[in-house]
């Protein structure tokens, strides 16, 4: 057997290098993005149908940046701003909910439609199944009261604290808003400081001001 010194497929036997693999791959029919995308979609559909798609997600372009939307079979579980780092948010979902996560937009169709309508000024309240599992105890209690603050109005942290029966817990209300897993949909942006300053926001102060202006228009 002759030793092969030409531009062979595998110059470096026995060790297989990246170049060897690339050489063999290049001589086989290409795997295209379109083929992988079709297989991915089929996987997402089957996983959902068989009840093993624990978290489905998609992104949605909005005037306040590209939002990440994630849902469990129970409902929308997370809305994330770009500043939170979508990859980190997905990693946190994998740790806290389940690593069975796929980019599977279909489960988010309704959420994306309603949020789109909201940013277009055509929707004042959301009618979506929500999964509150990322908020517990007092924070969850605060979050469930937020839709009671009507579109275009605001409430102070102290007022919200009083609403949940703990008037002195306005700092804890601030924490609940700052860690709201469902911003925009649960309108923590309507909770502002008593002096009228909008205060902080998970999506950044500019996003909060944008939402307040949108609702005031």
């Amino acid at each position, binding site marked *: *057997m*002759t*030793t*092969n010194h*030409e*531009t*062979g*497929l*595998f*110059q470096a*036997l*026995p060790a*297989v290098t990246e170049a*060897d*693999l690339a050489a*063999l*791959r290049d*001589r*086989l*029919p*290409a*795997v295209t993005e379109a*083929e*992988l995308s079709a*297989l*991915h979609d*089929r*996987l997402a559909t*089957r*996983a959902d149908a*068989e009840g*093993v*798609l624990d*978290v489905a*997600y998609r992104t949605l372009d909005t005037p306040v940046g590209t939002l990440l939307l994630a849902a469990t079979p129970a409902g929308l579980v997370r809305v994330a701003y770009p500043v939170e780092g979508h990859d980190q948010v*997905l*990693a946190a*979902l*994998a*740790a806290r909910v*389940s*690593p*069975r*996560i*796929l*980019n599977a937009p279909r489960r988010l169709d309704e959420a994306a439609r309603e949020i789109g309508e909201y940013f277009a000024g055509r929707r004042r309240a959301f009618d979506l199944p929500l999964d509150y599992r990322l908020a517990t105890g007092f924070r969850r209690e605060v979050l469930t009261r937020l839709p009671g603050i009507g579109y275009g109005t605001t409430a102070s942290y102290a007022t919200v604290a009083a609403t949940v029966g703990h008037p002195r817990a306005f700092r804890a209300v601030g924490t609940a808003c700052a860690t709201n897993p469902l911003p925009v949909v649960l309108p923590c942006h309507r909770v502002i400081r008593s002096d009228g300053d909008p205060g902080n926001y998970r999506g950044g102060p500019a996003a909060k001001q944008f939402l307040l202006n949108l609702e005031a228009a």
Partner: protein
Amino acid sequence: MSTSRVAPRAPFEAVVAEHGATVLRVCRAVLGPADADDAWSETFLAALKAYPRLPGDANVEAWLVTIAHRKAIDITRAAARHAVPVADVPEPPPAGPADGRGLDLAGALAALPRRQREAIAYHYLAGLPYQDVAAITGGSTDAARRAAADGIARLRKTYPGAALPDGEDS
């Protein structure tokens, strides 16, 4: 009792993105293009189901190839139950992709005995060491190495267009 060694895992989406193409190449090399899509789908669906229980230090690619190997066997058995038996291996597909790329080598691969296709796919396409290839296909590490070497030697005869490695070693 000892605590679980299962570490938090990356979202499964990242597994598909990182390994999807390699697993499809492996499925095509072992089964041919017609059944490769089904094997890929069955592999990733089964992997998704089992994923939360995968140990944190597991080799994900070797794990996926192991599943793909079993799914390929399932598909071949199912096809055998439903089809009239044909002599030996089917002919390679007459037409390739529009750009003509890979036509000859894919056909030459398809004409190899299954054991050789598996060894070549798992070692050369998935990059697994022969020890891992042997663990997947059964048999010894030496047998896996020999199957790949024999396959490469046959490819050199049936696919003269490419320079291929010496089959005597590795």
